[in-house]
């Protein structure tokens, strides 16, 4: 890829371009089928709403890990790496919601010759609730080194 971002290109406090994901019931069904998860709050509307008091069926929380992974690996480019991702589940992600992932660089540092960034992450629903706050460590290539 030509649009590789480098460690020298970014500064502390900088925000990454936001990344959006629409959660649909079909995506939820695909996910449940592929990881073989039969928790009824994810697909059984009467069970989720009447028995568990949820507003709707809810997306498996782990889909947030996938969304952040895509957001950060795409941004870091072919020569960058997502090293670490930590998240907390605070609020449910509902089908029909467009979720917005955001990341802010809170620290730049060199670890064993590699350019690393510590990021603060948010994944907000259309009401502005941060459903899954998180942090990440992303490695970016450095302009000085030929080999990333």
């Amino acid at each position, binding site marked *: 890829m030509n649009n590789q971002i480098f460690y020298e290109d970014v500064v502390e406090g900088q925000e990454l371009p936001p990344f959006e994901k629409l959660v649909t019931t079909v995506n939820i069904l695909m996910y449940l089928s592929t990881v073989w998860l039969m*928790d009824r709050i994810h697909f059984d509307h009467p069970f989720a709403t009447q*028995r568990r008091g949820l507003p709707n069926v809810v997306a498996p929380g782990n889909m947030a890990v996938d969304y952040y992974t895509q957001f950060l690996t795409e941004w870091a480019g072919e020569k960058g790496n997502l090293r670490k991702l930590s998240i907390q589940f605070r609020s449910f992600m509902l089908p029909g919601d467009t979720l917005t992932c955001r990341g802010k660089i809170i620290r730049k540092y060199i670890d064993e010759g590699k350019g690393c960034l510590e990021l603060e992450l948010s994944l907000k629903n259309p009401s502005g609730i941060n459903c899954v706050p998180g942090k990440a460590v992303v490695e970016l290539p450095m302009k000085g080194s030929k080999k990333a």
Partner: protein
Amino acid sequence: MEASLLEKLGWKKYIGQETASYAGETVLPRDIRRYALAIDDLNPIYFDENAAKKGKYGGLTAPLSYVSWAIGVPGGEKSVRELGEDGLATFVGVPEFPNTWELGWVRGGEELEFFKPVYAGDQVTVTGNIVDMSEKDGKSGKMIFVTSLFTYKNQKGETLAKHRVTMIATPRKES
């Protein structure tokens, strides 16, 4: 302070115990494709062998996050009759104690450290240990936090990822 629920359940003795060990089956290109479609990540390196060869990893790989669940719940393959009424069976991070399902479980948080991706054709082995347990008085009663560490390795013994999962258990509201 009320009596400790953790004491009553008798779970402290399980800290350090191995909770999961799966010798993985082969990851197929179809598994990767379907996972990528589910999470709506259409990067060709998950779908097209040729594109993948020219890409970052030189071969067809799964999204990095594939390790956490797609690999981690083979123990959850149960028949309708064996599943709980809520559809739950084995769950990543929920240990199988004799009285596990007397409580309701929700995910608290998790931390993933990525080292290498899963390639199509890999056999991924998972081992899990309970590393911590604690208790808090929440707004609506007792909360128990159970943290497990899962390590994923491929058939060459290379570590792919480390995954810390914290699950929160609370007494069930329904009886």
